[in-house]
């Protein structure tokens, strides 16, 4: 078991009139190389949960174990957990501060004592894998870049620590369609080529369909679903109960199912097109009218 979350509960401002329970007896496990989406409406506890995965928050009850290390330890072992589990916050570019892209991406490994050629190699690698041209961009100010490029610099500055898990909170928020497709494609490659474990926090069904294989759904601090993406997408009522708005594609699939067609929940438009041809239009011949 690579990451184990066991019976974790967490309350903000405990023992005060303002106490809010954010997590309630949460348990799940992630295997190395998995791609998991954590879904749920705003305020369901998603962000609290992911901050537990690298020891930014320590469970008040229960435990989190990363690659054999309980995050309740302190010192060097906890630092190692934080290196292994890279956390990319929402709108990460808001937290950038260095004067050049190189210094931004080099910041974390430099703090870990990496220097010289090794440092340069790391920065080059991290920028390249997110699709940034090292030579063209390394000396630029991060603030001269487009929104999509800034987002990728922020992700590169985590990758330069050589994490084994990348946890991303709403990584595509605010990106335009091209920036979003590019970023999701790069995350997919990171997983396939470099074996990274990806944990994606989102309320966007389309992002989840594009890169996750498994979905963990939180509602009011509790896990209400843990299973495959297709299984989650197959049940409209459960989705809505969890506060997840189905994509237009899924809405159309649900309508067809209600009309009696055995349509599988589609992950992409092309999937759906093939399903419709096979299950709805089968046997109906296109007439020979030319368009």
């Amino acid at each position: 078991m690579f990451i184990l979350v066991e019976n974790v509960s967490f309350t903000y401002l405990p023992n005060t009139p303002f106490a809010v329970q954010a997590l309630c007896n949460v348990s799940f496990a992630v295997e190395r190389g998995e791609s998991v989406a954590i879904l749920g409406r705003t305020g369901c506890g998603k962000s609290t949960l992911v901050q537990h995965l690298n020891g930014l928050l320590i469970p008040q009850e229960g435990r989190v174990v990363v690659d054999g290390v309980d995050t309740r330890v302190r010192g060097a072992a906890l630092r190692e957990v934080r290196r292994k589990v890279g956390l990319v916050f929402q709108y990460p570019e808001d937290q950038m501060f260095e004067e050049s892209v190189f210094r931004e991406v080099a910041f974390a490994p430099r703090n870990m004592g990496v220097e010289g050629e090794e440092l340069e190699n790391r920065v080059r690698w991290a920028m390249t894998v997110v699709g940034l041209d090292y030579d063209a961009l390394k000396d630029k100010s991060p603030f001269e870049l487009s929104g999509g490029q800034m987002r990728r610099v922020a992700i590169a500055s985590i990758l330069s620590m050589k994490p084994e898990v990348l946890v991303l909170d709403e990584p595509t928020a605010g990106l335009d369609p091209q920036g979003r497709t590019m970023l999701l494609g790069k995350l997919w490659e990171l997983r396939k080529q470099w074996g990274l474990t990806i944990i994606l926090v989102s309320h966007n069904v389309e992002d989840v369909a594009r890169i996750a294989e498994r979905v963990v759904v939180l509602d009011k601090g509790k896990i209400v679903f843990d299973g495959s993406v297709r299984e989650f997408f197959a049940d409209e009522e459960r989705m809505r109960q969890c506060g997840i708005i189905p994509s237009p594609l899924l809405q159309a699939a649900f309508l067809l199912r209600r009309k009696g067609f055995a349509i599988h929940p589609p992950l992409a438009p092309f999937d759906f097109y093939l399903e419709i041809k096979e299950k709805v239009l089968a046997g109906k011949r296109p007439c020979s009218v030319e368009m």
Partner: protein
Amino acid sequence: MISFEDVHFWYGERESESKVTPVLQGISCVLREKEFVVLLGRNGSGKSTLAKHCNGLLLPKKGAVLVDGMDTRDTSVLWEIRKRVGLVFQNPDNQLVATTVEEDVAFGPENLGLPPAEIRKRVDEALEKVGMIEYKKREPHTLSGGQKQRVAVAGVLAMRPKYLVLDEATAMLDPEGRAELLQLLQELRDEVGILHITHNVEEALLADRVLVIDGGRIVAEGHPREVFLVGRAIEQWGLELPQIVDVALLLWKDYPDLFKVLPLSPHELVDALCSYS
């Protein structure tokens, strides 16, 4: 009517000095009264710069922007223009200034110098319209993103504008907040002219008319049923097809008589599929 007449804009003094390419390169377009227009464009296409021209926050370097015939460069009518054209911006946390919701909405009408009774009436009406009246004593920071944007819209509505310009107002909202705001725009579309600026192609399906901007130029214009007929070529402008349109265009190639018009919503697609024989 807000009318753009061959508008050019660049940041900096002279065109030759400008480090970047001009941001607007000859924009001509209109927003009519009570019309719902969605302006689509990728990051950096010039769409926010265009938004800021609608009420004179930015002034054209060449060409003109006219609001009901008034030129935005004419400082004597700028006040009147700003009353008629309300802007709502992207970040819900940057737009609310007062300590309670109702005070925030009252900010604009107070600055118009209206009598207190009239301000009271306008604030209540505006909050009623956006469905936030029961939150009027709340502190803005306790609201969700969608609620904050609705309050921002109320602040603009209290000015009784003829036109509402939303500059990526849905971009930072979660899906529920986005749905709330879009629902509100649907309710307002018969009362004010709306220019909704976004890169979310699904939101364009609601429009009477879609404008696509790229490289500072309007590159496509029409009803969503027409504009999205370009198919995958839409990627040249950094956009994608709405999901339902993508599926429909694939099917339409194989079954040329499947649709009479391009379906836009899940219901339209499914109705066409089920009535096909």
